[in-house]
C-alpha cells in the first residue's frame, strides 16, 4: 500500500511539474485548463446521448435522419465537435444487437457520451469483445437470444458510433424526458439495454 501511495504521488508531482513548466513558458492558459476540466466533468456526458435516443424513439422522422446522417441529426440537438465529428448511429432491433469498441485505443463519441468509462479503455474489454461478444455481454448482465445476430463495431478511424437501444415495452405513454431517463450509458455502447419502466 505504501508503495502504491508513493507511486501515485510521483504521478501527481510529474503532472504538476508539466503544468508549471507549460505555464511558465506561456504555452497554456491555466484558466483554459479549468474550463476544459469543468466541461468534461460536468457538461458533456451520456445524458446528451440519452436525449438523442429518446428523440429517435418518439420522432420517426428524426430517427430516419439519425440513421441516414447521424452527425447532422445529433447537431440538431446541439451536440457536435471533438471526437464526434463523424457520427454513425446503429439501431438495435429484434434479432440484431450492436456493440461498440475501439480495439486500438479508446475512441469514443465524446459529444454524446462524455469520456469513456474505465472498462471501455481496458485491454480485456478491447481484446475480448471482438472475439466473444456474447460472453462479454453476459458479464454485463445482458443475455441475448441465441438467434440474435451481434455486430461489433471497431472504431478504427475518426468515425464514432452511437447505439440506439430498443425502446422498452410499456413506455407508450411516457414523455420524451421520462424516456431519456431509461437510456443508460452502457445501452448506447451496446453493453447494456435500456432500463425497463420502474427499474432503477
Amino acid at each position: 500500500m505504501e508503495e502504491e501511495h508513493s507511486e501515485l504521488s510521483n504521478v501527481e508531482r510529474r503532472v504538476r511539474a508539466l503544468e508549471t513548466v507549460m505555464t511558465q513558458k506561456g504555452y497554456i492558459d491555466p484558466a483554459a485548463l479549468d474550463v476544459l476540466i469543468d466541461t468534461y466533468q460536468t457538461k458533456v456526458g451520456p445524458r446528451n446521448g440519452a436525449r438523442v435516443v429518446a428523440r429517435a424513439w418518439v420522432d420517426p422522422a428524426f430517427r430516419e435522419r439519425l440513421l441516414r446522417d447521424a452527425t447532422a441529426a445529433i447537431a440538431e440537438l446541439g451536440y457536435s465537435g471533438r471526437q464526434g465529428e463523424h457520427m454513425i448511429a446503429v439501431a438495435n432491433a429484434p434479432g440484431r444487437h450492436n456493440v461498440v469498441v475501439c480495439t486500438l485505443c479508446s475512441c469514443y463519441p465524446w459529444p454524446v457520451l462524455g469520456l469513456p468509462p474505465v472498462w471501455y479503455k481496458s485491454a480485456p474489454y478491447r481484446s475480448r469483445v471482438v472475439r466473444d461478444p456474447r460472453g462479454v455481454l453476459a458479464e454485463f448482465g445482458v443475455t441475448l437470444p441465441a438467434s440474435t445476430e451481434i455486430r461489433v463495431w471497431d472504431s478504427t478511424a475518426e468515425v464514432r458510433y452511437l447505439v440506439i437501444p430498443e425502446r422498452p415495452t410499456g413506455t407508450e405513454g411516457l414523455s420524451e424526458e421520462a424516456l431519456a431517463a431509461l437510456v443508460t450509458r452502457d445501452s448506447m455502447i451496446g453493453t447494456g439495454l435500456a432500463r425497463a419502466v420502474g427499474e432503477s
Partner: protein
Amino acid sequence: MFHATWEPRVHALTIALGATGRWNLDMSRSARETLPDYLNLTYYEIWLHGLEKLLIEKGLVTSDELSAGCARLAPVPVGRVLKADQVAALLAKGTPTERASVTPARFKLGQRVRTRRTPAEHHTRLPGYVRGKRGVIERVLGVHVFADSHAQGAGEDPQWLYTVVFDAAELWGSEAKLGHSVSFDAWEPYLEAA
C-alpha cells in the same frame, strides 16, 4: 471516467497543448503507442508520458526542465495558446477529417476485399486481428485524412474510407462463437480486391 484528480488535468493538458498546433492527433496516438513502457502504464499515464514525449520531440521543452519542474530556456513560438473563452468553440468545431474526393473510390458496396497481410512499420489503424482477412465493403464513408501518413508528418494524404465487415469465423476460425460479425473502418491502402 477518472480515478484520480490528476487524470482530468492530463486530459485537459493534452487538449490545450494540442491546440498549439505543433502536432496532430495521429502523432499523439503514435507517440503513446511507441512508449517503451506502454504495457506497464495506466491509461492516463500513457497520455501523460506521450504528451511529454511529443513536447520534447517538438522542442517545446527539455527533459531537464520537466524533471526540475522549472522552465530554463526561452519558449519557442507556437501557433496558438488556447484561452479560456476559446475552449467551447474549439471543442464544438472539433477536427473533421473528411476531405473532397479527387479520385473515384476503388471499391464499391458489397464488394469482397482482403486486408493487407504485412504489419506496418509505422503508426497504423489496421488492427492485427484483421490483417490478411476477407470481408465485404458495407459502407463507403468518403475520403478522410489518412492516419498512417498523417502520423508520420507526411501530410494529410486523404484516402477513401470504408466500413468492412467480417464474419467471426473468418477472424477466429474454429473457435469463433456463432452469430456475430465484426466491422472496422479501413482506408483504401489497407485493402485489395479479393
